[in-house]
């Protein structure tokens, strides 16, 4: 590791030393190449080329021996298991951003200017530092199920709460379609802190004058939230929603760690991994990756348009 870092830094230093020797205006291109070259090379080899290859591969057989047209895509959009995967992905990407952003927004408003604001924020923000694998384990334990018989006690908090309330314990991660919602809860738990931080900053940027004026007009409480706060931070809301939406589309760690995609909980990002690296179905895997790509593009495009619009003002 240390060796790798040293070798890398030495290489960069050598390049910089060489281009540092070149002086004068004519040298600008060479200098620029030295500065930008390594980055361009890496993204060309590591992102552009593979992306093009994958698109090509999605039209090929599993072993890449021949073209099969749209067969891989047809499989994804007709096979019943794959349709479940698509349905779950849709559920994830519709529910997660809105709930996470909603909770983040409400919390940001509630604790704004509170005495313990910094501490209160840290509590919600902390899950962001935890890996999805770690978060999955934490929640798997909350959902842990013990059959209702004899002297067996629940060790998962959620089931214990059910028992305390007089209900019978549930297998949260097994019973479809609810289990997908319980997986989504983990993603919301991780992402709400991100939403809260960004939105809190946006709320603080609302000029006091506006709030004061509204108060003089007799607006307060929920009205203030609806008519002043939310419209004022609309650009930030869009950014947060799209960012979480994109992250949600690509996440597979939670499904992989908690259910492995069993019990009808699979999503595109996890099915991609299974097909491409476990089932040796490179073509289908590639097609799934392309579907993921196709789903991300419009979200990002919308995001960039919003950003442009807010910058143009």
């Amino acid at each position, binding site marked *: 590791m240390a060796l790798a870092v040293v070798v*890398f830094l030495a290489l*960069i230093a050598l390049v910089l030393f060489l281009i*540092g020797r070149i*002086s004068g205006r004519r040298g600008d291109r060479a*200098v*620029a*190449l030295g500065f*930008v070259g*390594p*980055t361009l090379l*890496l*993204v060309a*080899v*590591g992102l552009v080329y*593979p992306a093009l*290859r994958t698109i090509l591969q999605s039209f090929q057989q599993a072993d890449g021996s021949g073209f099969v047209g749209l067969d891989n895509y047809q499989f994804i959009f007709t096979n019943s298991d794959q349709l479940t995967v698509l349905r779950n992905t849709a559920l994830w990407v519709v529910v997660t951003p809105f709930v996470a952003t909603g909770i983040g927004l*409400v*919390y940001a408003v*509630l604790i704004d200017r*509170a005495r313990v604001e910094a501490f*209160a924020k840290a*509590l*919600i923000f902390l899950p*962001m*530092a*935890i*890996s999805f*694998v*770690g978060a999955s384990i*934490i929640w798997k*334990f*909350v959902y842990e199920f013990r059959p209702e018989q004899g002297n067996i006690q629940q*060790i998962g908090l959620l089931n*214990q709460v059910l028992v305390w309330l007089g209900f019978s314990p549930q297998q949260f991660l097994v019973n479809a379609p609810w289990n997908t919602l319980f997986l989504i809860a983990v993603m919301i738990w991780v992402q709400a802190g*991100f939403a809260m931080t960004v939105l809190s*900053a*946006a709320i603080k*940027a*609302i000029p006091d004058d*506006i*709030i*004061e*004026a509204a*108060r*003089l007009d007799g607006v307060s409480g929920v009205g203030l939230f609806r008519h002043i706060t939310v*419209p*004022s931070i*609309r650009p*930030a809301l869009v950014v947060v929603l799209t960012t979480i939406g994109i992250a949600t*589309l*690509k996440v*597979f*760690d939670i499904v*992989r760690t908690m259910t492995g995609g069993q019990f009808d909980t699979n999503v595109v990002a996890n099915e991609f991994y299974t097909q491409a*690296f476990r089932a040796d179905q490179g073509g289908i895997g590639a097609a799934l*990756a392309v579907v993921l*790509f196709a789903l991300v593009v419009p979200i*990002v495009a919308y995001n960039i348009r919003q*950003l442009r619009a807010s*910058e143009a003002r």
Partner: protein
Amino acid sequence: MTTSAPTAVVPSVARTISTTASRGKKRLTSPWASLAAVVIAVLWTLPTLGLLVTSFREETDIRRTGWWTALSDPTFTLDNYREALGRESGGGGLVDYLVNSFVITVPSVVIPMVLAALAAYAFAWIHFPGRDFLFIAVFALQIVPIQVTLIPLLTLFVQGDVGEFVRIWVAHSTFALPLAVFLLHNFMRDVPAELIEAARVDGAGHVKTFFSVVLPLMTPALAAFGIFQFLWVWNDLLVALTFAGGTPQTAPMTVALANLSGTRGTDWYLLSAGAFISIVIPVVVFLALQRYFVRGLLAGSVKG
């Protein structure tokens, strides 16, 4: 920041009675609001607390009773951590994986940081043909999901006989570059042009200008990105699963835990301790450098 807010209403009246402005800053203080905030805070904290308490309980206790019973009858032990870290049988000890996580993370943070800083400088301050097009192209690559690149990249690595660690370093560095260049470029543009020009007039080349003028100013931005990248790489599962091979020689903590979770779902004494070993390092980094992290987060998403 405002779009449709009634800015027109902002009256001079509001300024004249600024004494009430401080009162106007008062937040929503109904008891229901406070209660809602507390409920959310508890919901967000309890799951982690539960697993943390569990990781210090005796194996038999974990299997028989809920962690909340330990609060009234506390018997705690470090055995779970000892066993999770150092299990000899079957090579299941997590120490190897923990070391791998470090070996993977450090170069994967340093390499893109250096490359992106250089590229961002060039995109901001060196005139060369195709500059704007290339910058937009690199920025646009953010929309490529990692999943799209994995299969061909693995083929390339296998053909080139590239070792597992090098694969992961290259992959993480590459995937980080579009965002890193974008973030650092934003900060780079905030450096006053006069500073750069002054250095240039004094006869400093771009290399010298970069190191003596720009780099010192960039430290907070670099820190912000560094934390981002550290958390992302440390917490990554997908790249590690694809390129690390899953062995104790090369796989990081996340892979070990995911496997442990899959095959030994009921071994909560190992899983809870293992989870906390993997969590503690990013959380410490995160808490120590939170300020930079938040700033980096806001630089990327909120303008103004």
